[in-house]
């Protein structure tokens, strides 16, 4: 199998798929909010951001919720078509699912539909109610999803233990210290202070606080584990030609994508300090024709710090084995050389299940469109590296996004 796939659609093609709008509401614990209400809200926010109304959409892609099957079934069976007044108008409404990397695969699906002419304008919707769900129920479901029942459930493994296994191996392979690992969480928390949608805005964090917190699953401290949150996000993609026709001068296109599904079971990952990140990035760079030196920032899945430090190494953003120290030196923090997870990431904006990756993707698009709040906005943001991963970090997905047009932040 070849490791490179040429893109069939280039920037000059009228069917080049582009992002034109995003919507998001704050993450955290919001028991008064409702699942369908939140989905409706972010749908309208994203469409307004694109200068559109629901009837401009022909296809809806749903990112699943993990908090309950009934709500998920509502999505699968097209409830949002009815809620948005698109009955009889919508061509298709369906769900894409690969856990935490779903948003990346939703972009691929939407891009394929638009590039091939099967869709003109695609609305992608996500909502999670983890923050308001029953904690024990969530622990139990998270201890079964993405874990082989026959071979690993009897060990008592769960999600933080999976994070612990990756972190332990990463620290052993790289010689990274507990303080260096904790500094990743602190960098993300610093970003969260600038994001009005972040769960931990207004709650500063220090390395000392992280290291003083209890062990959850050695070497992971409690404060290095993500907090489950409610949240919702949406984005709109259309063809470059349609965007132009509608007067949308500044858009974000997909310059390339690459992925690597490296395992299903955590016990079957060949190298827990590598995962699939480097392979995924290599495939993505081959498609885009540009690499880490050409990008200004990254939005990379971060339910545990090591998942992200392994990624920045695999992406070639820093030297191999130096990811945690690179974070500790402030490179990814506000004001740093290569900002990462500028919304605060899953660790500080809130872990909204499958939506954690969606929030990072939406933040990347927001930055490229120049629509972040001024204190958070990256100057001259033209290219972004998006990284997503699902399940037991079974896959590594990379999207390379670039701004088109003259707009955006100066």
């Amino acid at each position: 199998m070849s490791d490179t796939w040429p893109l069939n659609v280039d920037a000059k093609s009228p069917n080049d798929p582009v992002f034109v709008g995003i919507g998001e509401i704050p993450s955290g614990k919001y028991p008064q909010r409702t699942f369908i209400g939140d989905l409706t809200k972010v749908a309208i926010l994203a469409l307004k951001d694109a200068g559109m109304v629901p009837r401009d959409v022909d296809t809806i892609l749903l990112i699943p919720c993990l908090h309950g099957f009934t709500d998920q079934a509502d999505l699968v069976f097209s409830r949002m078509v009815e809620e948005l007044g698109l009955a009889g108008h919508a061509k298709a409404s369906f769900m894409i699912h690969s856990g935490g990397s779903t948003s990346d695969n939703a972009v691929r699906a939407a891009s394929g539909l638009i590039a091939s002419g099967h869709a003109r304008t695609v609305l992608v919707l996500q909502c999670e109610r983890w923050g308001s769900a029953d904690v024990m129920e969530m622990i139990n479901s998270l201890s079964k999803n993405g874990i082989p029942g026959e071979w690993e459930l009897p060990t008592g493994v769960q999600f933080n233990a999976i994070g612990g296994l990756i972190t332990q191996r990463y620290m052993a392979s790289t010689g990274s210290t507990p303080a260096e690992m904790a500094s990743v969480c602190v960098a993300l928390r610093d970003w969260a202070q600038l994001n009005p949608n972040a769960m931990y805005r207004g709650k500063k964090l220090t390395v000392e606080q992280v290291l003083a917190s209890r062990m959850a699953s050695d070497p992971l401290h409690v404060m290095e584990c993500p907090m489950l949150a409610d949240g919702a996000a949406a984005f709109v993609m259309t063809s470059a030609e349609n965007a132009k026709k509608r007067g949308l001068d500044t858009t974000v296109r997909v310059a390339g994508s690459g992925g690597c599904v490296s395992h299903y079971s955590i016990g079957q990952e060949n190298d827990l300090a590598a995962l699939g990140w480097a392979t995924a990035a290599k495939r993505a760079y081959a498609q885009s024709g540009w690499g880490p030196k050409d990008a200004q920032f990254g939005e990379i899945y971060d339910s545990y710090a090591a998942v992200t430090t392994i990624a920045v190494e695999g992406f070639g953003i820093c030297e191999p084995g130096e990811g945690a120290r690179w974070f500790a030196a402030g490179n990814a923090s506000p004001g740093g050389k290569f900002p990462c997870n500028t919304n605060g990431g899953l660790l500080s904006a809130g872990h909204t299940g499958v939506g954690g990756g969606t929030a990072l993707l939406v933040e990347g698009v927001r930055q490229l469109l120049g629509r972040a709040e001024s204190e958070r906005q990256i100057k001259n943001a033209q290219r972004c590296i998006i990284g997503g991963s699902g399940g037991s970090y079974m896959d590594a997905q990379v999207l390379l996004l670039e701004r088109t047009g003259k707009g955006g932040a100066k």
Partner: protein
Amino acid sequence: MTPPIVADFRAGLIRGELLVQKCNSCGKFNMYPRYACPHCQSESLGWQKASGKGVLHSFTILRLGPPEGFENELPYALGVVKLDEGVQLLGRLVPDADGEWKSYKCDERVEFAPMSAEHAEKRPCAWFKHAKT
């Protein structure tokens, strides 16, 4: 009903044996056991008693938030072991005398530690301890 592929593996643990699947057609080992050989797609698959020896790739000690039913076992250690047979699996680690796991390090040699039949019945997974040098 427990499928035979699982029942056979668990029966091995109860006997104090760590079994790995072996393909009758190409002779390669498969872990976790599969319904068709990923190497040659043969459905003629058998078992071989593993040496039980291998290298600890990584480990963690869960102290909080266990899955339901594991509350009374906290803390416990999980480890990914790469067996000398060239396959790997997730198992549990036997604690040191003080009930902790301070002596364990990544890349060190470990070996399968059979549990009692009663224990293996309740928790059908492989346990490992430091390999005798």
